[in-house]
């Protein structure tokens, strides 16, 4: 018998002994693959377009993405908008098919796969005020304000926002996003429902646009300045005030993460931006792998596409205490 301080161990305390009893000892954690901005273009005519921002997906990166993810444990798969570049039926159908096949190879139930529209997904339907007339809605469904799930015995609440603008003249305003008052109302009702039924639930948020601007991006050659939401700071403030654990978004193809705590009496909200997973002509293709351990921490690992496939970017791995 081995003794250390007041503890005494023997073989019965080894992991092998636990495995032998069919018992797993581990902090429960929800593992999230966070993809964004796939930018599928599969329509033959649209594939010919090569100007900046309107190009399509890289087939090699897409295959590498599938290979990488199938080697990982994933409980929830998020795609935070811009599944397609043009929002056309052909590309959206193919993007949806890709995601569902990927989910199948990850053994995920359909309910554990979540997506929202991005500004590119509604480009061809931009003038359709009623969202249900959009091709995105017809192919990918409506954006549910709340989806309640159980993952590894833990309650998980996912709050989703459609931040695409329905006003202005594309392309002058399409980059910008907004959360409407109707969406805030639906969110507030959903929060009440979750807090009443499952107050200890892990609260996750997905939105396409940037709630807050990203620092230092000019240094990396990103010149866009009209890409945050018109009411992004209000949105971020409200999310932390209501106890959201994690906000995931995409849009600017620039991976970044931070945490917010305007209300010190509430836990900080971690805000994670994903880069584009597979659009060509970008400075980088990447995705995020996030592990949420309730009341403990949120760890973020970024995988970047290289010649050989997706690799962990060790410099961007962060752990946020919660």
């Amino acid at each position: 018998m081995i003794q250390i301080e007041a503890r005494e161990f023997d073989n019965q305390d080894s992991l092998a002994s636990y495995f032998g009893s069919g018992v797993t000892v581990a902090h429960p954690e929800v593992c999230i693959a966070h993809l964004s901005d796939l930018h599928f273009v599969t329509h033959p005519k649209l594939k010919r377009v090569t100007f900046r921002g309107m190009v399509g997906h890289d087939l090699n990166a897409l295959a590498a993405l599938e290979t990488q993810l199938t080697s990982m444990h994933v409980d929830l798969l998020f795609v935070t908008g811009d599944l397609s570049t043009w929002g056309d039926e052909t590309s959206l159908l193919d993007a949806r098919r890709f995601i569902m096949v990927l989910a199948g190879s990850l053994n995920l139930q359909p309910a554990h796969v979540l997506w929202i529209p991005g500004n590119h997904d509604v480009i061809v339907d931009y003038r359709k005020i009623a969202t249900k007339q959009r091709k995105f809605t017809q192919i990918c469904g409506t954006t549910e304000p709340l989806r309640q799930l159980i993952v590894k015995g833990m309650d998980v609440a996912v709050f989703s926002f459609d931040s695409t603008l329905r006003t202005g003249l594309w392309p002058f305003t399409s980059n910008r996003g907004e959360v409407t008052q109707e969406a805030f109302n639906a969110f507030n009702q959903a929060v009440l429902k979750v807090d009443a039924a499952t107050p200890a639930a892990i609260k996750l948020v997905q939105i396409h646009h940037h709630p807050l601007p990203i620092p230092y991006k000019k240094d990396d050659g990103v010149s866009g300045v009209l890409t945050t939401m018109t009411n992004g700071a209000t949105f971020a403030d409200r999310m932390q005030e209501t106890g959201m654990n994690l906000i995931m978004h995409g849009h600017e193809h620039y991976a970044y993460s931070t945490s917010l705590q305007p209300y010190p009496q509430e836990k900080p909200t971690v805000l994670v931006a994903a880069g584009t997973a597979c659009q060509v002509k970008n400075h980088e293709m990447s995705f995020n792998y996030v592990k949420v351990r309730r009341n403990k921490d949120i760890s973020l690992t970024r995988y970047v596409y290289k010649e050989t496939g997706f690799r962990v970017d060790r410099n961007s791995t962060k752990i946020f205490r919660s």
Partner: protein
Amino acid sequence: MPYYESDATLERIRGIISEEIRSGVNSLTASYLVRKHNFPLEAVQKVLADLVSVEDLEPHFWVLCSGEHQNLDVDREFLSMNDIPKITTCSKCGDLYAPEAENILVSFEPTPTLRDYLQKAS
């Protein structure tokens, strides 16, 4: 805390773990509970793991040198399996070894949530 309504043994073990923590024991092991209370090992391990999954207990992993000296490396305490290096050097005997399931030992400490609960309940 979970209640094992359909299994008296598991429920008894759960109660004993609460009592041990109330009495001031800060670190529990399966072997200690088996020795002291004569419970079946598998049942004790199941309850301990269940209490981890509901965040009442926190596992602490300790690495035992797999070299000939079989030292418990006191500086090597980990809160997550992911933090355990694949290959490491024993700080006591200098042996290079790869920690495996046989050489990783587990103890359990109550979380602040459980402490608060027990304090309020008493």
